[in-house]
């Protein structure tokens, strides 16, 4: 009798324990459901002809009309194609150079003069806290026809007519935008690596030094390999987030001359929805954005598997 009862209480206790554990996670599951899955419900708008303030009704169901309208004429295909190209190229450049913050952190770590290092770190971190709107006004005052750059160049006698930097057109826009992004983010992104570097076992360096390794060799054989796991985690996060952070920068920098090369998906969605209240079309396009995200994520995962033999999803 007694042992059975004990067993029962034990089982109950175990059960209760697992319920308790579940309760611990439940809030987070709910949060994810509410904020990450429930919004997917909004995708239904892509299949309706929705126009506020008219209430949503089944009468307005239009099926795949909006998806079809994206590709109904050559001009539109060309436009969407260009937008996708811009998105991929700019993502590509950005991801392809995502090792820059790591390198920056490594070299900064090698600076022996501590006050100088602190100054460099502060100066490079600060731009991250400036909003894109302000970045554009800085850009405008530096690069307009009577701005600092043009005044400097004409005073030096290099140019006689002002160069209109902001009216730039052509694929160079991609590079310029990447430079702005890097200027703003480099210092901030390197913080994670600086933290990781301080976590590397100092004995490794001591041993290497005893073995006669140079500073370059220590970087190459110790620091960088120790940073790689961090790098790959951050790379994955970047891939997942890239398409979400893109818009503000391009929104403030866009003008009639660079629009063709600056319009990424997010911006295109914004321009379409805000310009015309075409919510349904915007939803349809933003679903494309999710497709791009998945492609990028799977791509990165495959690459990681190929190179390092381990995947992160």
């Amino acid at each position, binding site marked *: 009798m007694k042992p059975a009862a004990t067993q029962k209480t034990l089982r109950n206790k175990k059960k209760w324990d697992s319920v308790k554990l579940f309760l611990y996670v439940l809030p987070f599951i709910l949060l994810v459901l509410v904020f990450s899955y429930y919004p997917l419900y909004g995708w239904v708008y892509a299949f309706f002809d929705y126009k506020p303030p008219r209430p949503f009704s089944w009468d307005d169901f239009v099926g795949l009309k909006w998806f079809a309208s994206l590709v109904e004429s050559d001009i539109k295909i060309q436009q969407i194609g260009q937008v996708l190209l811009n998105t991929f190229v700019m993502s590509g450049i950005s991801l392809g150079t995502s090792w820059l913050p790591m390198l920056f952190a490594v070299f900064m770590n090698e600076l022996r003069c501590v006050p100088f290092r602190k100054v460099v770190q502060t100066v490079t971190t600060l731009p991250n806290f400036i909003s894109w709107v302000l970045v554009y006004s800085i850009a405008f005052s530096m690069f307009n*026809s009577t701005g600092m750059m043009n005044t400097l160049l004409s005073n030096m006698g290099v140019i006689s007519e002002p160069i209109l930097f902001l009216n730039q057109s052509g694929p160079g826009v991609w590079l310029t935008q990447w430079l702005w992004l890097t200027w703003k983010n480099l210092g901030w992104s390197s913080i994670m690596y600086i933290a990781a570097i301080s976590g590397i076992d100092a004995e490794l360096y001591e041993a290497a030094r005893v073995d006669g390794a140079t500073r370059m060799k220590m970087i190459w054989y110790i620091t960088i390999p120790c940073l790689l796991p961090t790098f790959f985690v951050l790379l994955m996060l970047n891939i997942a987030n890239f398409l979400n952070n893109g818009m503000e920068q391009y929104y403030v920098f866009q003008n009639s001359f660079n629009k063709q090369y600056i319009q990424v998906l997010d911006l295109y969605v914004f321009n379409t929805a805000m310009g015309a209240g075409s919510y349904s079309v915007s939803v349809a396009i933003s679903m494309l954005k999710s497709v791009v995200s998945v492609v990028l994520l799977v791509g990165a995962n495959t690459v990681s598997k190929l190179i390092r033999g381990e995947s992160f999803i």
Partner: protein
Amino acid sequence: MKAKRVLSLSLAAIMVAMSMLGCSQTDTASSTAEGGETASAAGDATSGGEEGGSGTPEVSHDEEVTFEIYDVAANFQGEQVGWFGKVLKDELNVKLNIIAPQVSGDANSLYQTRTASGNLGDIVILDNADMLDCVDSGLIMNIADVVYSFGNLNEYQEQIDQFNQGMGVGDEGGIYAIPCNMNNNGPTAFVGETVASAPRVPWDYYVGVGAPEMKTTDDLLNMLKDMMEKYPTNSNGDPAYAISMWPDWDGESIANANLIAQWYGCMPYGAILQTTENTIIPLTDDEGGYKKALDFLFKANQMGLVDPDSATQDWTTVCETKMKQKRVYLFWYNWQNGFWNTPSHGESRENYMYVPVEELHYYQQSDSYYGDGRVWGVGSSVDDNKKLRIVEFLDWLASPEGLQYQHSSLEGFIYTVNDDGTYTLTQEGQDRFTASIEVPEEYGGGYWSDGNDQINQWIVGSAAKNPLTGEPYDPSLWASTIEMNKTATTNEWIEMFGAENEVKYMEAHDEVTMLPNINIPLPSDDTDIALIRSQCGDLISDTSWKMVFAADQAAYDQLWTDLKTQLEGLGWDQLVEYDTEKYQPVVDAKIAAME
């Protein structure tokens, strides 16, 4: 240990509860939405049941009532305070709580949430097309039973009835909307001293380059070139340009070119141009005003007259650092003058003045007799008592007394009454927009501008004639003010051109066509058209800027040809056809009103 477990469990419970709370928010929202619908149904039933207005209804003012007013024109959110707040409290025992989508940060989502909840506000001020949608969705109340019961709105019955008949939604014979900015001067009257868009230049510089007589826009450009050569910088040494523009107001075409199109007798509306001959042509017509405006700007840029930053600077930059610093020599909007023209600049002959160019013929709308494109309505969820109070308030706003407060402000403080019954601005009145004027405690205290009518929209516009004075309500149009504002500049101008003001000059030389300002409720675009409009608009604006800054004539022509080809691929023809049909009734009404 146990305490710890209890603590962690209760924390978990709290978090669960909180996240549930997060979910239940939607439930509350949807239940209010249902509540709103029931309320609106009830509202319809009661309004339908009441009898048509006979005699002024009894309205008790014993109880203070607060109106929530959803106002697309307001630049202020919150309770109306100060002198105007006091007037409303004293006259009608009314308080206003203004909801301003423009201030809220995200106008679109505010509109959507409030419409989804079924209650936009007690009083609603919307653009015509939105009002159509809202009446259609049952958000607006029929006020036909009481609207003409109080006596003052009756004066505008023709315009109000015509507008409501034109809406084609809601009950037959129902009154849902009252147009904004109507007047009592007749459909083709124009009381202003300036037209909306015309070339205006600094008077001293114009005289400085020999005050040339100009026959064509090429003469105008040459004159501007002389001006730039003779006066290359402002007094601080900053470079000046004849023309400086800004892209942030662009919509379906570039805003600045739209204004210049009016010089060629064309007014852009969406994808079409209305002409002074009352015809409709596509915006991209080779002979149309928009193309001519682009030609003008392209030529100007070839001559080095256009500020190279025009396509990248925003309005604030151009206004603060250029217009207010006399670094721009050609103005076209009539209100742009306000950034430079002052009595002291007038005395030193520096004010911007209109200069005639013989070949131009301006498109000008008369004052908005029929209303200006926005409307007032009453929310469908107010009860009968509140409905009466609201209509009474709207009627007061349209009464001579209410209008004097709205347009002329406070007697004895802002203006005084002359012996002949007309009004003169006091010193406070003259400075009311430019300085911080403190209002005496007896009138409500605070600063004048803080206490000014924050609704920022009027049922009857300031151009309307005040029956008490025989002059418009607008203080700037009083004979006393016009006399007060005469300066060396205006005197010289009058002497040179032999007319009282630019409008009189244009009328005398047959340079302007005054078209009736028709206010017909036009439907908002369906989603297909809206998409085509947005995509075509982006393309037109972008290409227009590229054209203005094109390297040479060949590149310019090529861009125009490419634009037309690309537009075809986006459905431009469909849009032009849609807009032609949409605006045909307006043109027809104009022709009818001119007969």
